[in-house]
């Protein structure tokens, strides 16, 4: 047991701490504030406090706990709302009311709730780490698979069926003359990646229901993406949309240093919205971490790592998980603040020089893997992190360090947001390196995907070039062909890329619908080009009722779309071809 030697904001130095280890969790002062040792010097331990240090005195006790900052893993995670240290916020609310008092404790998993455990192995079976020994129906969507914790193997001596809490033993494993008791719960140090058998390249589309992502800049299962954007560019809404509609088994939403009102908005909406495929409430496939900007700074880092650790745990069960982190810049700022207090040599803009490697240690935990243990299974963790560059200037260190790690960039654009073009993902600067990884998936679904995608992007690129000329000579001075190109580009932008997160139908667009929508616009372009060639004027094309009909495609529900679009196509063939005859 040591004592406080110095306090300066979240930095606490304790004396008489011999025998402690780096990253050990300590309890500071009489109230037992949670802290973490980040350095040792002789007898002194340098501690970052995860809670407010107001009112601490020199000489107060500091207790080592002997454990590394860890997450509790077991049934009860799904649907929960945690703070950065994995305290259940609802339990805290029940215990201490609507304000968070420091030093208050709440466990991550409910201790009194009984879960129905069904064994999948029997007495005498040989098991080793990662093997699934039984299942618990956690929610309507998630079957929680109980795995043998790492480093344990042997034969099943006893296994029980029935209702148990997370602390009651359900299985006994015998190895030689040693017997290990297993409960439904296990712990894992959050900074340490969980092991797997083998890692694969990301593959298969992570369907998000957002057209610009799914069709134009796809994200693959096991991939890593970044969404940088200045304030007001719709970063949070875009991430919320991802967390809502991504077709994975489980999504983890980490609100790191962001707004409380928005967080409560997300929480409320997840209690009401249903998954488009299963019709089950979204909160049954979601875990929330809410470390809002007024909560202790140091816990921001913890919130990110707690999130990714829970994701890996579910990945190990054989699930596809999406982790959404809003915003990694707040975490980087927390690193900067601690680094400054530790008087480390600053790197760029005061950020510590290890920021890049710390960011990678988060993003690199994404991936598609073959999980440890039996039965054989694959799981994946996909990561999407928001970045909040100061002044929307992407040359700043957090954005640049992130770009070195990620393979899909969704660059949010202030000028698009000012025009209320949402999602304000800039189609010229964004990219995805997963086009090849999802090619097979798309081609099975929508043959010709690559060509349609490429030609639409080409139209947009040409529009950007023409835009320069328009600014000099005006739109009316362009040749007819260019005018048509501008019209088509506008249709792609407004009728395809723009998508309202608040429209009941448009908020989730199935990939099949997205494909048909873009094909419709490209078909219009082709027919209109023929019309021009046969001497029709651009005015007759602009005023064609087809333009209006195409603009309303978004409102057609996913299910009815194929039928309705066929009608549209045949009408288009007729009216535009007729138009061709009558110049």
């Amino acid at each position, binding site marked *: 047991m040591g004592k406080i030697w110095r306090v*300066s904001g979240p930095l606490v130095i304790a004396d008489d701490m011999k025998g402690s280890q780096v990253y050990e969790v300590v309890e500071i002062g009489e109230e037992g504030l949670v802290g973490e040792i980040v350095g040792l010097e002789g007898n002194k331990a340098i501690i970052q406090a995860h809670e407010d240090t107001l009112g*601490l005195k020199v000489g107060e006790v500091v207790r080592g706990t002997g454990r590394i900052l860890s997450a509790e893993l077991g049934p009860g995670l799904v649907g929960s709302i945690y703070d950065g240290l994995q305290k259940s916020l609802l339990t805290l609310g029940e215990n201490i009311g609507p304000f968070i008092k420091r030093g208050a404790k709440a466990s991550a998993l409910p201790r009194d709730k009984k879960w129905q455990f069904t064994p999948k192995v029997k007495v005498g079976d040989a098991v080793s780490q990662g093997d699934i020994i039984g299942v618990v129906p956690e929610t309507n969507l998630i079957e929680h698979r109980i795995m043998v914790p790492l480093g344990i193997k042997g034969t099943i001596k006893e296994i029980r069926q029935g209702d148990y809490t997370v602390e009651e033993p359900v299985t006994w494993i015998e190895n030689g003359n040693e017997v290990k008791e297993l409960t439904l719960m296990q712990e894992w140090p959050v900074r340490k990646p969980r092991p797997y058998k083998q890692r694969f390249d990301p593959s298969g589309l992570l369907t998000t229901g957002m057209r610009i992502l799914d069709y134009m800049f796809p994200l693959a299962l096991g991939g890593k993406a970044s969404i940088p954007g200045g304030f007001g560019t719709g970063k949070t809404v875009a991430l919320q949309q991802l967390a809502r509609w991504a077709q994975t088994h489980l999504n983890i939403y980490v609100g790191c240093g962001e707004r409380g009102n928005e967080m409560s908005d997300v929480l409320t909406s997840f209690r009401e919205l249903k998954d488009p495929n299963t019709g089950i409430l979204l909160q049954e496939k979601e875990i929330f971490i*809410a470390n809002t900007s*007024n909560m202790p700074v140091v816990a921001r880092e913890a919130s990110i790592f707690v999130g990714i650790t829970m994701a890996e745990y579910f990945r190990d069960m054989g699930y596809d998980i999406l982790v959404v982190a809003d915003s990694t810049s707040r975490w980087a700022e927390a690193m900067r603040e601690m680094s400054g207090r530790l008087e480390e040599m600053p790197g760029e*803009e005061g950020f510590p020089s290890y920021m890049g490697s710390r960011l990678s240690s988060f993003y690199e935990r994404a991936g598609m893997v073959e999980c440890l243990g039996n039965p054989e299974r694959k799981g994946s963790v996909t990561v999407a992190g928001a970045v909040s560059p100061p002044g929307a200037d992407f040359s700043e260190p957090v954005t640049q360090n992130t770009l070195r790690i990620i393979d899909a960039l969704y660059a949010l654009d202030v000028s698009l947001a000012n025009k209320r073009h949402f999602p304000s993902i800039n189609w010229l600067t964004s990219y995805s390196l997963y086009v090849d990884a999802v090619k097979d998936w798309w081609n099975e679904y929508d043959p010709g995907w690559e060509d349609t995608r490429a030609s639409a992007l080409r139209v947009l690129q040409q529009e950007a070039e023409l835009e320069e000329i328009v600014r000099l000579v*005006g739109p009316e001075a362009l040749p007819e062909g260019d005018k048509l190109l501008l019209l088509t580009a506008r249709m792609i932008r407004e009728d395809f890329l723009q998508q309202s997160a608040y429209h009941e139908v448009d908020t989730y667009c199935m990939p099949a619908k997205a494909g048909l929508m873009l094909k419709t616009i490209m078909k219009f372009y082709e027919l209109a080009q023929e019309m021009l060639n046969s001497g029709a004027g651009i005015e007759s094309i602009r005023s064609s009722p087809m333009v209006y009909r195409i603009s309303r495609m978004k409102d057609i529900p996913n299910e009815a779309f194929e039928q309705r679009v066929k009608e549209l196509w045949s009408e288009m063939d007729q009216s535009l071809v007729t138009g061709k005859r009558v110049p």
Partner: protein
Amino acid sequence: MDFSSLYVKEGRAISKAKGSLLIAESIPGIKFNEMVDIQLGNGEVKSGQAIDISEEAAIIEVFGGVSEVDLIGSKIRCKGETLKLPVSIDISGRIFNGMGEPIDGGSRVIPEDYLDINGEPINPALRQPPAEFIETGISAIDGLNALVRGQKLPIFSGSGLPHNRIVAQIIRQATVKGKEERFALVFAAIGISYDDASFFMRNLERTGALERTVAFINTASDPVIERISTPKLALTAAEYLAWKQNMHVLVILTDMTNYCEALRELSSMREEIPSRRGYPGYMYTDLATMYERAGRILGKEGSVTIMPILTMPDDDITHPIPDLTGYITEGQIVLSRNLERKGVYPPIDVFLSLSRMMKEGIGPSKTREDHNNVFMQSYAAYAEGCYLREISTIIGAEALGERDKIYLTNADEFERKFISQGEWEKRTVEDTLDIAWELFSTLPEEDLKLIKEEFIKKYLPKYRK
């Protein structure tokens, strides 16, 4: 009660005094962030706060600066408390300074409670999403950037722009439809000129709002360091009124740029590593800790709505102060010098302004069913008009097509009829929406793509009988 026990610890050995910091030998038992009194050799007493404590030294930040502090005769006395605001319902109608002491000539508040000015974070799981529309009577706000209860919506202004008049108008006119509820105003003047402060106070007096106002005044001539505590005191008072007295509280903080300047000054005195433009790296967290005190809580009746005003240095929205603020607040109302020059009042820049909570606060039973559609369509039409205006400055308006000319005129009319209004003109939200429909009637009907057809049939003037 034994008052002498308040002064439990004393320290004498001060080794350094500079700017507003004192470095003293360690004082046993001193708490982190504790308030201290510094008794000078000449008998004067200053307040301070321990910002870094260790077995070797204590660093004290002195409110009002270290002038006249001597290293030999001065004594530091610990008060055993962090900075607290005495509160009771009697704070309504009172005026305090940046240390929470009354400056209106009245007596001290007899406290019901002492509250830590840093507050405690609201549990995000127990927040209630803000959804009650506040009608400000200003079209550019109500129609396009609606304010809701529990929101934090700043005004980004520039020097010389009429932000004070706009805020005064909001204070005069703001109501929640169909409700008579307990409403209070908390006003914090942070380093603003005496004239600006008295403009607000006069205005409050004239409208009779003064008696339900709590004011904290730190003018430009008051100690810089008290600018740090002024907004926190104001928010503490607001929280008391909202959560203990069930009131709906609107907090006006002006001017937050002065707060940030004070923060920078302090940071450089503490010799911290600066981040952008010399501002400390923790400025985001520091501002967020204040602004996040806005909100609503499940099961509680009151609310805290914050409207900070800040002047953007050199009208630059990417400057760290507006930039970090924009990342924290739920939108922003941006004033435009261009519109001001054109004689538009209020000169609200519709493109840069944004209210993130708007969608929750508008719609049927809150404002009107067509509100969201009207908002989107007005926006799109005005954006198109402004784009064409930009082009027409190069190629001339004559080179535009017929349709484009319509949009160009529409944008001018939008500024003249929709954004512009009188300083004493209070428009209901229905008036605001009807003006927008009036403007839509000059556009081709098939261009109203963002509006549901049933609303077009119902509200477009030509179908209205």
